């Protein structure tokens, strides 16, 4: 999915390390993740937070991902990406405990 001409498969230890980094970042960013989720609950009151986040998300996808991929196109489609973004944010927000690494790993394996 990334803009890369080298199709290397991720190794298991690299996958584990990425999960650990993601969990630590989620702990640190939990207040922000929570605010983004909350802003979507009542769009009339907090639409600025959600719109800013969505705009930046799309910018980053366009910058770093392969735009020819169908899965990437789905991420950019505003009608479809709401559910993907919310579920991703929810997954991160559920994994901020000390056992967050194991929880996130389970979620990803069962995805």
């Amino acid at each position, binding site marked *: 999915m990334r803009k890369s001409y080298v199709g290397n*498969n991720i190794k*298991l230890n690299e*996958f584990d390390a990425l999960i650990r980094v993601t969990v630590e970042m989620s702990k640190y960013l939990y*207040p922000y*993740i*929570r*605010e983004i*989720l*909350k802003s*979507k*609950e009542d769009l009339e009151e907090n639409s600025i937070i959600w719109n800013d986040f969505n705009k930046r998300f799309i910018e980053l996808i366009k910058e770093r991902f392969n735009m020819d991929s169908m899965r990437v196109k789905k991420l950019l489609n505003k009608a479809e990406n*709401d*559910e993907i973004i*919310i*579920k991703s*944010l*929810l*997954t991160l*927000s*559920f994994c*901020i*405990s*000390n*056992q967050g690494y*194991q*929880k996130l*790993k*389970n*979620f990803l*394996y*069962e*995805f």
Partner: protein
Amino acid sequence: MQNKLSFHQSSVNLEIIGLPDYSNNENKDQISIISQWKLTIIDKPLIEGKIEHLGPIMNAFYIYSNLLIKNEIPIFESKLIDIKADNLHIHNIVLKSSKPNVKPLILKIGNSLLSDTINCFDQLNESPKVIIKKPDVPNNFPGKLRNGLNKKLKFSNFFIPPFIAICSLILLSSSFIYFYNPFESIEKKELINAD
């Protein structure tokens, strides 16, 4: 004198009140005999109950949150608690009383409050000061899933090299058609025989 422990996450607070089990040589600041628990969610009615209600309620929240993430239908129903998704952002919780003629308590919480509640339960689960029969958080996944990633990589590594080898062999051998024409050689043989 009872011990009181609080687990706090943003807008949700979980309070556990109880006593240590001195017969088990526990420290005086521990809780293993829970007499009461209270779940306070800002702007929502207080949820409280006995120890036998805490485990099923925690389980319900864990199972529901798992269903929500795994793209399955997010519905959890039991004798004590029902949780359903109104939409992608709002969750409807119905807490049923065990006493007769008591109306169920209905709460609507958003994703932010749901994640706060789950995090409070996680803190309780991980606390060394509270000893309870903890609900089964799905932490141990089956061996099949654990090895899935490895197997996938090995599978592709196993099949792709011979596939490329066969393709290159076909391409290489088809190029020989320019140097050797089987019909021409048959004609030549016929000419030699005719001579």
